[in-house]
């Protein structure tokens, strides 16, 4: 009989720009070594995962990241009293900073384990620092610069040629072909995600991504590359396929080895027509397509839980090449009572 553990997971927003929560949960449910009791952590009452009772056993609203670490600690303490949580997997970039600050306290005060990147790793892979990250760890990154005001646009134009990529602090990126578009996207992104805005050199090619897990000691437990086959208007993969690309896997493994990355991650690359790889972004958590890795034989979320619980995990071997994922949308019928319950008492 498999041991049962309780894992709390955020990112239940399985929408057109999906969070990784539901794919992570599906992978955990397929573990051969443990059964899971899944606790959902949500910010919004319309996150679809809240109502997926076949995947999520119980859900709790948690305070927005802007409320700070004390509010989060208090809420997690309450949830732990109800559910006796073993592991938490936070899946949003914007919430990670608070969870990282609480990692030790959650372990010592509540007995909850996590497996997150260190503050230094989190900071150095930040979009604003990625160019320097690339230089430090020997990977090509398009030249980029931070921008704090639209007054800087004329100066930026002397360093970059059009088109250029305008990126938000946490999410979203647009291609700008003239100064007016840069100003427009600057205002749009800064209003939504705050400052700075990152201006990045535009590199033409096909987008290839890697979902990976580092053990914090320099070992890549797994790295599975994927090419997007269908991209939504928000730039998200709606279909993709696993690739046989040793060079790409080796670049990812080198990044993990050099940075001693701890936890799940997604590396986003552009592959040019000359077969050169440029690292566009590192997301410090699993991507929403991480279930493809499980489908290819690398159950990365399961391995992360084992690492969080202090178990030793050997690097995976080969993964299945040419495996595809195709997303779909699905209408759930939900009783108003459930919506009322999560809206009023914050639990479902």
């Amino acid at each position, binding site marked *: 009989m498999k041991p049962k553990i309780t894992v709390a997971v955020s990112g239940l927003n399985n929408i057109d720009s999906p969070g990784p929560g539901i794919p992570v949960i599906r992978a955990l449910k397929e573990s051969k070594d443990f059964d899971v009791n899944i606790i959902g952590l949500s910010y919004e009452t319309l996150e679809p995962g809240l109502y997926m009772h076949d995947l999520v056993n119980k859900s709790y609203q948690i305070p927005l990241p802007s409320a700070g670490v004390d509010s989060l600690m208090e809420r997690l303490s309450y949830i732990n009293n109800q559910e006796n949580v073993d592991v938490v997997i936070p899946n949003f970039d914007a919430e990670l900073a608070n969870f990282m600050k609480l990692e030790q306290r959650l372990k010592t005060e509540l007995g909850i384990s996590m497996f997150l990147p260190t503050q230094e790793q989190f900071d150095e892979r930040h979009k604003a620092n990625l160019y320097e990250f690339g230089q430090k760890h020997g990977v090509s990154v398009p030249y980029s610069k931070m921008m704090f005001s639209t007054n800087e646009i004329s100066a930026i134009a002397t360093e970059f040629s059009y088109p250029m990529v305008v990126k938000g602090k946490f999410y979203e990126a647009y291609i700008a072909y003239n100064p007016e578009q840069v100003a427009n996207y600057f205002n749009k992104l800064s209003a939504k995600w705050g400052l700075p805005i990152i201006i990045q050199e535009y590199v033409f090619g096909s987008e290839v991504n890697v979902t990976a897990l580092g053990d914090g000691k320099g070992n890549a437990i797994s790295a599975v590359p994927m090419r997007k086959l269908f991209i939504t208007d928000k730039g998200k993969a709606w279909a993709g*396929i696993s690739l046989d690309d040793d060079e790409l896997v080796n670049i990812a493994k080198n990044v993990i080895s050099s940075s001693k990355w701890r936890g799940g991650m997604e590396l986003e690359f552009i592959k040019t027509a000359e077969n050169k790889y440029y690292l566009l972004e590192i997301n410090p958590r699993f991507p929403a397509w991480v279930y493809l890795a499980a489908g290819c034989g690398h159950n990365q979320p399961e391995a992360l839980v084992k690492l969080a619980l202090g178990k030793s995990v050997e690097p995976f071997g080969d993964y299945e090449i040419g495996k595809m994922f195709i997303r779909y949308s699905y209408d759930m019928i939900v009783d108003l009572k459930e919506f009322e319950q999560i809206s009023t008492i914050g639990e479902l």
Partner: protein
Amino acid sequence: MKIKKNVAISESGFIFNPTTGDSFSTNPIGLEIIRMLKDEKGKDDIRKAILSKYNADESTFEKDYYDFVMMLQNNQVGDEGE
């Protein structure tokens, strides 16, 4: 020209390049040619095989073979340096 070793070719003429994630379909004659290329047969052998089996003249074969090989190269199905 050689075909990359990891390129998968199915009985139905479906070709999958696992390095790029691209997939293509070819007709039965294209399938025959790509299989011969994968078996490292040279252009002369392929010409002989096709001309002996199908009612085509040399110039038509040359043109179509060139087009087909260019298409394979553009889609990175061919081995680099070959």
